[in-house]
C-alpha cells in the first residue's frame, strides 16, 4: 500500500522534473550540464538517485516560490490590498514541519541502500593500490606484480597557450590504468605526501588518498572504453594537472597487457646494468627532468623563490655527487621534495642527476652511471 503510494508520487515527480529539465537541455545541447554517462551499475544508481533528488527539490522550490511570487503579485499595496493581521497557526506550522520530514525519510531510504552497496568491497577479483603523489598517481597491481606512475601528458605548450589545445586537454596521461571489464576491482588508496582524491565521474567513485591511511573502494566496469577523471582534493601547485585515465579492456586484452608490462620490466633492469655515454644520459635525463622535476624547479632550473629552490647554481647540484643522489633518491622530509628512489629506475635516476649537474646552467663535469645508483639502494 505504502510502496505503491510512494511509487506513484515518485513517478509523478519524475514526470514533472523531466519536463523541467528538458527545457534547458534542448536549448543548450552542446553544453556539459549534468553527470557524465554512468559506466557501472553503481554509477547508474547514483545517477538515478541524483535525478530523483534534483526533481524533488526543483518541485518543492517551484511550489514555495510560486506561492511567494503570487503573493508579491496579488498582495501589494499598489493594488490596494489591505494587510491581514494573522501571525500564527499551530496547525499550519505542524504540517509544514511534518511534511518535509516525510520527504526527507523518503530520500534517506534509497540513499542508504546505495551507500551500503558502494561500501561493500567483498568478493573482489583483483586489487589495485593507488598512491597519490604531488602531482601524479602510482598504480600497483597487487595480484600481478606490476607498478607504474601515471603523469599528465598534455604538452606544456598547450597549457601556456602556445599550441592549440587537444581534445583531451588536461585529461590525458602517459600511462593508463588498464583494467579488465566485468570484474569486481578493489582499490586501496593512500598517499605519499599530502591528501589527494581519486575520482572518475563515470565510475561514480571518489575517495581521498591520505598519507598514513588505507582507504578502500571498488568498481565493476561494463564496457571497454576510456574513462577520465581528476584529482579532487587540493594538493598544492599542480593539483589541476594530475588527471586519471582508466582504460577498460576485455579480459583477453588485459592478459596481453600484463605480459607486455613484464617484458618492459626486464628491459628496464637491463638498462641499469649497462654503461651509458654522457650524451645518452643527458638526453634521457632531460626527459626525466621534464616529467618529474620541472613542475617545481622550473624548465630552466630557476625554481620559485621562497617556495621551491633553484637547481641552477645550487649547493646540492654543484657539490658532491653523493649528497645530490641522496637528495633525489631520499627526498627531504617536510617539503614537497619526494623520495624518487621508489619512482624512478636506476638508469633514470643516474640520467636525471647527470642532467641536473651538467645542464640547467650547471657545469659539474661528472657523469653518474646506473651502477652507482644501484649501489646506494
Amino acid at each position, binding site marked *: 500500500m505504502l510502496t505503491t503510494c510512494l511509487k506513484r508520487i515518485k513517478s509523478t515527480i519524475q514526470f514533472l522534473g523531466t519536463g523541467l529539465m528538458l527545457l534547458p537541455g534542448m536549448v543548450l545541447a552542446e553544453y556539459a550540464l549534468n553527470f557524465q554517462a554512468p559506466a557501472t551499475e553503481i554509477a547508474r544508481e547514483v545517477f538515478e538517485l541524483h535525478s530523483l533528488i534534483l526533481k524533488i527539490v526543483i518541485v518543492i522550490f517551484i511550489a514555495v516560490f510560486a506561492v511567494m511570487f503570487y*503573493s508579491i503579485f496579488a498582495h501589494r499595496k499598489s493594488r490596494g*490590498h489591505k494587510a491581514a493581521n494573522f501571525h500564527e497557526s499551530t496547525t499550519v*506550522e505542524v504540517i509544514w514541519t511534518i511534511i518535509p520530514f516525510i520527504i526527507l525519510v523518503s530520500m534517506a531510504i534509497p540513499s542508504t541502500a546505495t551507500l551500503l552497496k*558502494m561500501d561493500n568491497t567483498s568478493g573482489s577479483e583483483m586489487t589495485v593500490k593507488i598512491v597519490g603523489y604531488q602531482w601524479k598517481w602510482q598504480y600497483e597491481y597487487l595480484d600481478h606484480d606490476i607498478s607504474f606512475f601515471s603523469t599528465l601528458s598534455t604538452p606544456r605548450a598547450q597549457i601556456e597557450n602556445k599550441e592549440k589545445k587537444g581534445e583531451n586537454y588536461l585529461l590525458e596521461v602517459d600511462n593508463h590504468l588498464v583494467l579488465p571489464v566485468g570484474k569486481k576491482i578493489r582499490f586501496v588508496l593512500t598517499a605519499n605526501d599530502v591528501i589527494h582524491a581519486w575520482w572518475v565521474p563515470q565510475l561514480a567513485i571518489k*575517495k581521498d588518498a591520505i598519507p598514513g591511511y588505507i582507504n578502500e573502494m571498488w568498481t565493476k566496469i561494463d564496457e571497454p572504453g576510456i574513462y577520465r577523471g581528476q584529482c579532487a582534493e*587540493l594538493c598544492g601547485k599542480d593539483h589541476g594537472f594530475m588527471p586519471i585515465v582508466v582504460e577498460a579492456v576485455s579480459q583477453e586484452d588485459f592478459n596481453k597487457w600484463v605480459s607486455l608490462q613484464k617484458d618492459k620490466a626486464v628491459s628496464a633492469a637491463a638498462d641499469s646494468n649497462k654503461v651509458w655515454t654522457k650524451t645518452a644520459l643527458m638526453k634521457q635525463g632531460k626527459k626525466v627532468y621534464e616529467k618529474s622535476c620541472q613542475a617545481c624547479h622550473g624548465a630552466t632550473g630557476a625554481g620559485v623563490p621562497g617556495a621551491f629552490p633553484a637547481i641552477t647554481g645550487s649547493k646540492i647540484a654543484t657539490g658532491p655527487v653523493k649528497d645530490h643522489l641522496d637528495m633525489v633518491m631520499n627526498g627531504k622530509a617536510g617539503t614537497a621534495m619526494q623520495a624518487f628512489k621508489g619512482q624512478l629506475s636506476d638508469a633514470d635516476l643516474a640520467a636525471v642527476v647527470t642532467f641536473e649537474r651538467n645542464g640547467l646552467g650547471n657545469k659539474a663535469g661528472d657523469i653518474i652511471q646506473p651502477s652507482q645508483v644501484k649501489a646506494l639502494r
Partner: protein
Amino acid sequence: MSEAAHHRPTGLSRWLFTTNHKDIGTMYLIFAFMMAIIGALMSLVIRAELFEPGLQLVDPNFFNQMTTVHALVMVFGFIMPAFVGLANWMIPMMIGAPDMALPRLNNWSFWLLPPAATLLIISLFVPGGGPAAGWTLYPPLSIQGGMGMDFTILTVHMLGISSILGSINIIATILNMRAPGMNLMKMPLFVWTWLITAFLLLASIPVFAGAVTMLLTDRHFGTQFFDAAGGGDPVLFQHIFWFFGHPEVYILVLPAFGVISQVIPTFARKPLFGYSSMVFATAAIAFLSFIVWAHHMYTVGMPMAGELFFMYATMLIAVPTGVKVFNWVATMWQGSMTFETPMLFAIATVFTFTMGGVTGLMLALTPVDFQYHDTYFVVAHFHYVIVGGSVLGLFTAVYYWLPKWTGHMYSEGIGKLHFWLTMIGINLTFFPQHFSGLAGMPRRIPDYALQFAEFNMWSTYGAFLAVFSQLIFFYLVWKTVKGGTKATDQVWEGAEGLEWTVPSPAPYHTFETPPKVS
C-alpha cells in the same frame, strides 16, 4: 546633554578611543566594506584566470593563494565583522539599552581587526607567498607552505580573539540590558539570531584556535599531531576544523535571517508569522550545526555508521530551515506589500538562500555527494548560501537602517539599479557553476578541460558585473551620508520597534533612560 558632549572627543582620538556602540559599529562596517573590496578583487583574479582554458595571468601557486586568501578575507574580514557592526549599531537600540554592556572591550574587539587583516594581506608578499592550502588549511599541505602560513595562523588567532570578545559583549548586553518589560520572547528577531550566533561563536572559535595552534607546533616545534609518520592523524585536523567550520556557516547566515525577519514584516505591513517557531527553528539549526560537521568529509573513508549518522543529521537541518522560509512566505501572504530596496533585497535573500539550501540538501546525501564533493557544484552551493544569504542580507540591513544611521533617505532609483545589477551579476556568476560541477569540474583548479569553457566564461562575465556594481552601492552610501531628503523617525510606514522611536539620525547616545516596553 552636556555630559554627552563631554564624552565625545573629536578627530582621530574619537575613533581610536571610542567606546560608543555607534562609532564602533560604523568602524566595523567600514572595515568590512574595505575587506569586501580586497576579497572581491581577489575573486576577479581567480575569475580572470578561469575566463578560458590555459594559464594566462597567474601561476598555479599564486592562484591557490588567491582562492585561499579570498575565502579567509571574505569570511573573517568581511561578513563576520559586518554583522558584528550591525549588532553594535542595532542591538542596543533595539532592546532599549544606552550602549553595549562592555564598551572598552568593544573598542578592543574592533581594533584587533586591522592589524590581523594587515598580517593576512602582508603574507602574500613574504618569501613563498601567502597561504595556498585552501581556507580549510588541511595538513599535510598546510605544513608544506612558507611563512605566509604562519602569518595566517596568527591572523586567525587575532580575529578569533576579536570574535570571542565581541560575542561575550553581545551576550552580556542582550541578557542584562534589555529595557524593562522586554522579556526574551519579545525581543526583535535580529537580536535573537545574534544571541544564538554569539553562542555558536563562543563554542566554535576556540576549537578552531586549537586546531591552528596544533598546526603551528607541527610546523615549527616538532609535534606530529597531524603527521601520520609520527603517529599523528591528518584527518583529525579535518574533524576539528569542521567542528568549527560548520557552525561557522550558520554564524555567517543566522544574523542575516534576523535581518530578513525584521524587514519582511515592515514592508508587508503585517507581523512576522510564527515568531516563536522562528526562535525555536534558529535554536534548532544552531544545535544541529554542531553534530553534522563530518558531512564535509564523506570521502575521507569514515565507517558506515559515521557516514549514515552525519547524512541523517544533516538532512534534518532542512526541517527548521524550511520552517523559516515558510514563515517568511506566510508573513508576505495577505500583506500589503511595497517594494523599496530593502524589501527587494530581503525577497532576493530568501530566494537565493533557498537555492543554496536545496543544493545543500542534495549534498547531504552521501552516495551522491561522492560525485558532488570538491566540484564546482559545491562552489555554487556555498556561494548561493553565503552571497545569496549573508551578503544580500547585509545589503538588506544597510538599506533598511541607513536612513536611521544618517538621517537621510537614500535614492530609491540608484538603490534599485544596484539591486538588479547585483542580482544579475551574482546569478550569472554562480548559477552556471552548478552545471560545470555536475559535469565534473573539480574546484580549486587554475585550468580546466575544454568542455567546461562556456560556463566558466559566463561566470567570469557575471563576477565582473557583480563586483563593479558595488561601485554604485558605494556611491549611494556616500551620497546618503553627505545629504538627501530628511528621514522621519519611523522611516518606513510599517516599521515597528524601539530603534524607530528615536530621531533620525540616531543621536550619539540613545536610551540614556530606558524606555518602557508594554
